[in-house]
């Protein structure tokens, strides 16, 4: 058939016909004989069945490479922590489940690694295998805050709950990290692991009873208790001189700033209990309390009770003292005015103190209170804002004007902003 619109490139004529050259279809110009275009050598479609490639050759969805790597990391973690097979299988299933979820599909590789750690953590918790988040973070070399965020998200996705980790359970695993058996260090500094563990455990229980443990990170506290236990099991002058930092060097453990604070807090509690020991005559201070730790720990419940009792008596005595001056005041209204004024002033002082900070008083009144209550953070006094606002009051124009720039100010600001922008661009180019 003749085609319209095609022009011969040689002579420009538009009469082009289709011609077959040995069954090879060609478009030929009638006037000059040039071949305009050739057809394909074959133009028969392959008339096969209507099945696409993916349907005939597709394989069931294999886990991608990253997921396989993640599972390997997970099993490696389990081996390091030496958990049993149940924990391993459970964590594998959790990982497979969570990995498929949309919130974990397009995230960084680090987050996927953290996810593996979190699955192990959750399975350990559910099957009563004590592991702290700090340990997992350490093994993965991840930031505990990021790990925590991934953990919370994973819990929401998998809709599981995990019971709280008991610090006492973790103590034994924690103690194993410290290399102070007689094989590692000098005889004077060496300590048997079981004794150390036992003593540290009782110190942890004491800390838990006296509000030092609740709400705090467990690792610094565990370190502090191990240190004090080590010192107190053999309180010779060598050990007493060793500071916490040096102890960490000896035991080849990473040091912790917060543990120092915990040591002083536990020592404070021990001092309070040490005062109650009947056969100790010297005053118990934080320097010499370590000697008595053995006795304190052995009789801690009795000492606690006796400390509470003597504290109650002390409180009652001080309350009576407060009442007495006021009674004397009432009884002698006609007494010399100076006396009554003097009696009034300390009472007023007490009252004004009570009015200014009534809240921290309750912490100071108790024998054992959480340290954040005994030493409260100083807060800026809240600015006294509007009270009794109806919300529908008139808004003065002057006030609103004060928030708007004058035209001149606006111009100056625009000019300086442009100048500053051009300056920063120049600096960037250079």
């Amino acid at each position: 058939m003749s085609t319209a619109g095609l022009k011969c490139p040689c002579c420009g004529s538009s009469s082009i016909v289709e011609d077959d050259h040995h069954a090879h279809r060609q478009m030929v110009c009638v006037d000059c004989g040039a071949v305009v275009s050739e057809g394909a050598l074959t133009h028969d479609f392959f008339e096969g069945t209507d099945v696409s490639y993916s349907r005939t050759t597709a394989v069931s969805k294999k886990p991608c490479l990253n997921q396989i790597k993640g599972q390997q990391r997970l099993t490696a973690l389990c081996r390091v922590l030496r958990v049993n097979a149940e924990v391993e299988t459970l964590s594998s299933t959790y990982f497979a489940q969570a990995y498929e979820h949309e919130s974990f599909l397009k995230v960084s590789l680090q987050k996927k690694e953290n996810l593996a750690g979190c699955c192990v953590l959750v399975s350990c918790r559910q099957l009563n295998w004590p592991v702290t988040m700090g340990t997992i973070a350490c093994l993965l070399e991840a930031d505990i805050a990021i790990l925590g965020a991934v953990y919370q998200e994973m819990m929401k996705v998998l809709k599981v709950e995990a019971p709280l980790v008991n610090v006492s359970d973790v103590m034994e695993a924690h103690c194993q990290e410290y290399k102070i058996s007689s094989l590692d260090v000098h005889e004077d500094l060496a300590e048997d692991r079981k004794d150390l563990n036992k003593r540290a455990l009782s110190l942890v229980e004491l800390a838990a009873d006296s509000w030092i443990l609740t709400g705090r990170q467990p690792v610094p506290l565990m370190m502090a208790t191990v240190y004090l236990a080590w010192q107190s099991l053999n309180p010779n002058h060598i050990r007493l001189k060793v500071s916490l930092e040096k102890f960490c060097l000896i035991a080849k453990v990473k040091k912790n700033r917060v543990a120092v604070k915990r040591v002083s807090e536990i020592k404070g509690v021990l001092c309070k209990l040490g005062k109650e020991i009947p056969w100790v005559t010297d005053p118990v201070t934080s320097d010499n309390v370590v000697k008595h730790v053995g006795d304190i720990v052995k009789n801690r419940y009795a000492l606690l009770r006796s400390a509470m009792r003597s504290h109650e008596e002390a409180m009652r005595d001080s309350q009576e003292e407060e009442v007495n001056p006021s009674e004397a005041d009432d009884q002698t209204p006609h007494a010399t005015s100076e006396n009554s004024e003097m009696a009034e002033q300390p009472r007023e002082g007490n009252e004004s103190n009570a009015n200014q900070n009534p809240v921290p008083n309750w912490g100071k009144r108790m024998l054992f209170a959480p340290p954040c209550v005994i030493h409260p953070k100083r807060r800026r006094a809240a600015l006294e804002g509007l009270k009794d606002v109806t919300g529908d009051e008139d808004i003065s124009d002057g006030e609103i004007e004060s928030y708007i720039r004058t035209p001149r100010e606006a111009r100056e600001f625009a000019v300086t902003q442009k100048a500053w922008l051009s300056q920063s661009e120049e600096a960037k180019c250079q």
Partner: protein
Amino acid sequence: MTCKMWVWVFIMIGLDAAGPVSNSGKSCSVLGKSWMAARASRVIMDESALERYFDDSIANDSGFLNGDDADLPSTPDPLPRSPKPSGELADDLDLSFLPDELSANACDAEGSGSGGGVALASHHEAEAEDRPSSSSSHLANDSAIFCPMTPMTPMTPMTPMTERSGIVPQLQNIVSTVNLGCPLDLKFIALQARNAEYNPKRFAAVIMRIREPRTTALIFSSGKMVCTGAKSEEQSRLAARKYARVVQKLGFPARFLDFKIQNMVASCDVCFPIRLEGLVLTHQQFSSYEPELFPGLIYRMVKPRIVLLIFVSGKVVLTGAKERGEIYEAFENIYPILRGFRKQ
């Protein structure tokens, strides 16, 4: 995590907790709770209430004693009573404030004396505590569900509900939104307003601040605005209106549409230390306590839908409320639970 990140955590927890619009019977539920308290207290009857009740009954005629006989089966009756016919009872008791069906029921039902007596006991309880007169009217409202003989099935742990906590949570922050109803030129606003900052690469809104009430607003180019930092609902509304006026003065046809409080944050102190480990054991389905991540316990209360952050020092932060009443209700719910974890 820095402090700032924890602020965002609080806001996110609050926004996360923001659920569907609360039912309109909010005030009813608060009063309903106090009525339940009255009923529960009548059943548990601590000494002071019992004394008051007996004083009242002795002061009035013996109709009360008959009522008391039937509705306190557990407590031993110190005074011997003879059951009087119910018709006499109806004459003695003033049932005028109750709807007809209850007074009819009081005559007919098996525990008729108890029904009247109980209603009166609640009424006296209400009087003794100086409740507003609305309580008697809604006693009538709740009379339809009132069944004197059914056993109490409390939904919260059974603690003596006669004592209120006496602590009122203080509002710390209100977040509200409003639609100014017109598109805005943010560059122009940032140029013309003194108290505005605009960094489009960092955030797509103008951040504007006013001094009184001390608040911050995020103003978007669509005309929508978020106002934060106010300490009460009225202050938030006033602040939002001031921002709208500033935008108006800059030349935009701003209006004040759909003002809505989105989140309220409050805090208070119960003044005793709390055993968080114990609380997470007994209330595991509501609490989340990870000392390695955050020192406080996160308690997600179901009714009302509020998130509470409970700390060992006894300080409690409540967030996620759309109305003030939800915060008060949530605190009154949690206070007896916390009291249970008080002793060392």
